[in-house]
């Protein structure tokens, strides 16, 4: 019987070997799909601990990246017992780095943390044109749109993109993130929220759904 609390804590501690060992042992016990989903939930709760420790300044960006890798690895171990059925997502986030900007590390961190929190994330990549955001937003009708950028030029690109989305009647909540993003930039851009902290960004999204 898997100790879900222990799994959560070990993942939160980023103890890779222990997490994988616990899960491999669990898989050998031929668990039911419900139990496997509970294990996924325990891993996701572990990511919550990672986010909290990051906000407290005990973990840093390198730890968030590693946590994302560890979570993927953990889910891969669980895949054979997860079955075809999937739990319903908390909500959908359309995510991309805005046009002119090729950076993706921050976006990827936010993606793995949002997925761990139960969101379905549709990542449309880097250097994404405003029209592409609009087309995809209309197709998905996602509750949330996340825009990422590192360079100062991203501010103008975010502004273009938000304007294009609103002009086309897309009313999803919009969150912007990345190094150049500030309260003033957020007001200028017309986004609903901004963050320079992926963990905080996930919390903002959770409050929206």
């Amino acid at each position, binding site marked *: 019987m898997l100790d879900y609390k222990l799994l959560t804590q070990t993942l939160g501690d980023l103890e890779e070997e222990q997490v994988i060992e616990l899960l491999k042992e669990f898989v050998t016990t031929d668990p039911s799909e419900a139990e496997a989903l509970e294990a996924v939930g325990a891993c996701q709760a572990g990511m919550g601990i990672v986010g909290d420790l990051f906000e407290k300044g005990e973990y840093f*960006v*390198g730890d968030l*990246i*590693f946590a994302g*890798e560890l979570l993927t690895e953990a889910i891969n171990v669980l895949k054979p017992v997860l079955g075809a059925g999937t739990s319903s997502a908390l909500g959908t986030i359309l995510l991309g780095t805005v046009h*002119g*900007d090729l950076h993706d590390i921050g976006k990827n961190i936010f993606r793995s943390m949002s997925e761990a929190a139960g969101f379905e994330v549709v990542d449309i990549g880097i250097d994404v044109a405003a029209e592409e955001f609009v087309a995809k937003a209309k197709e998905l009708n996602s509750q949330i749109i996340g825009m990422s950028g590192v360079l*100062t*030029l991203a501010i103008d690109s975010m502004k273009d993109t938000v304007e294009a989305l609103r002009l086309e009647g897309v009313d999803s909540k919009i969150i912007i993130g990345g190094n150049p993003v500030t309260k003033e930039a957020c007001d200028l851009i017309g986004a609903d929220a901004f963050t320079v902290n992926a963990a905080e960004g996930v919390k903002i999204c959770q409050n929206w759904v």
Partner: protein
Amino acid sequence: MELSKETLQTNKLFEDLYDGKQPRRIPIVSTADNAFCLEYAGFNLKTEQYSVDENLEAIRKATADFDCDAVFALYARFPHLYKILGSTNFVPGADGFLQHPEVCGLEVDEYDEFIEDPLKTIWDKVLPRIHKEIGKGGFEGQKAVSKAYHSFYETMGKIGMASMQMANELGRSTYSFVGAISSTPFDVLSDQLRSFTGISADVRRRPEKVEAAAAALLPLALKAGILPHSNHYNRTFIPLHMGPYLREKDFARLYWPSFKAYVEGLDKAGVGANIFVEQDWMRYLDYLNELPQNTTFMFEYGDPAVIKEKLGTRHILTGLYPLGILKTHTKQECIDQAKFLIDKLAPGGRYAFGFDKCLLRLNDVNVDNLKAVLSFVKEYGKY
């Protein structure tokens, strides 16, 4: 080249600064990108950035128009060179501006051979992976290497000569903030070899390999960081990257030893270091203080009073002026911010005025605000 009286006087500002003496006024350093200069001069980034001559023309115009104490732009990334090499580590975005996407030049199972002989591994495996033209191998690959080699040295020669000339003619200093450029061993390992994502996993999964690889890179960093003209005033620029993303115990074991040895190695060779302290390094100030005396730190973030107190009697400080406000705030507010920082950081010397970030694009600032701040600093910064 015989230097003009004005240039000699401006050089003296930096000589005093780097010697830890109080100069007659606060020197103003510039860390603008050549892309800013191209746009300021009315050139199109997508086409003109490939021409060395047009870059130099643009830098000259910006140097004449903006009242800094050095040549206005850092011209360190060469689009034509990346084009020749088919580089994947520096590529233009949709509007032509060069960026550094995440690249992985060294696979995880290649650590041992890299530690054994880093130069051979870089030559045989990393360069062909990062640069598509070299990756073609055979004659095509070698042709790309030869073209790139000649293009690089021709470009560097042109820039060196033109920078000296424009500095001398415009009364700017002939000392560049970036006399040479070479990152710390750990940052080379992460940014060019293992990638941000790769290194973040390596730090936890195989710290002993990371530690050995950083140590193996130290002689190469020193080789790249010391050029024939390098000295105490023609300093080596070290843009720091990964430190703030690590836990302190990982920083202390994996980042710091080769970083410290690198700056000490430069110092031993008589070469000063101008270090760009990117992101928030406030938890590492005590480490930075251990570096050789009169190292320059250009800070991006942090409390100026704390930084001055911890580092200001032993080292040289610059940066911290939030570039972003030059676009969003009024002229008077921009000037007030300069006054605030000068009042905090300048007393006693060991301070040059500078921005918190490199000025990348024309659209990043209101040019009138930039000019107003520079004029203000020149006047208000007299000791």
